[in-house]
């Protein structure tokens, strides 16, 4: 059973990411993105099952020494957090980390 506070954390993280209030960044591992706070950091990643090609989204919490202290995946969060929310969080984290919006804005300004 996933802690209610984790659910609250993901909801808030999702909202802040969607609002563009927090910026994720790329890590050394392809498809893994992280965000730091003064004493903790979070990483979000996606994996595809080689068996049925289903996608799972993982969120991990690290302490101030960079040690993993908690990890959850979308399957554990159902039904409190639907898969679509986790997927949206992942893809928006990726967008901010890769600077997709800035790239689009720059291209649009060149085209104008």
């Amino acid at each position, binding site marked *: 059973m996933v802690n209610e506070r984790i659910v609250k954390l993901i909801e808030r993280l999702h909202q802040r990411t969607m609002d563009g209030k927090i910026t994720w960044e*790329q890590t*050394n591992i392809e498809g893994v993105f992280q965000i730091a*706070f*003064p004493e903790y*950091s979070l990483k979000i990643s996606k994996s595809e099952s080689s068996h049925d090609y289903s996608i799972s989204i993982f969120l991990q919490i690290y302490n101030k020494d960079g040690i993993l202290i908690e990890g959850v995946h979308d399957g554990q969060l159902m039904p409190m957090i639907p898969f679509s929310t986790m997927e949206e969080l992942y893809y928006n984290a990726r967008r901010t980390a890769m600077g997709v919006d800035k790239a689009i804005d720059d291209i649009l300004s060149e085209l104008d």
Partner: protein
Amino acid sequence: MDEIIKYVVDHHWGDVASVLEVIIAVIGFIVTIVSVTRSKKAAQRAEQAVLKIRDEMLKVDTIAEFSAAIASMDEIKRLHRENAWSVLPDRYSALKKVLISIRSVNPDMPDHHKTVFQNAIQHFSNFENQIETVIATNSNPPNVPKLNQIISRQIDRLIEVLVEMKNNFRGESHGK
């Protein structure tokens, strides 16, 4: 002798002596209080001086550790280019310790500085885990330009923090 005693008694010299005794005692008491107060102030000044020296030494240590951390990051970038994977986990770990130490001895640093440290510490933890796995499983080495790009970004941010800290230190020194 009797004449002397009579003279002293007639002229109330005993009373005068008592009054003088009281006056001397009061003066002595005041002198003692003043001395004690001065000693206390001197001790406080000495304590403040020691605290100030300790504070200055901490600042010097912080700046020296900062410079060492940045130099170590440049060295790690070079080791990446040389594919010296076997020595890198120890370098990441040592660098993390320096970053954690700087943050620990400066607990009053603002949150945006702590975030820069946390981000760098997390990146080097990620590197350490990845390279340990590469070594253990003899798998393909990671993308060096990507690793070095991440390090360069951390260096830039840490230099910004260092400059801000130095400015704050100068401001504090001038303010004292």
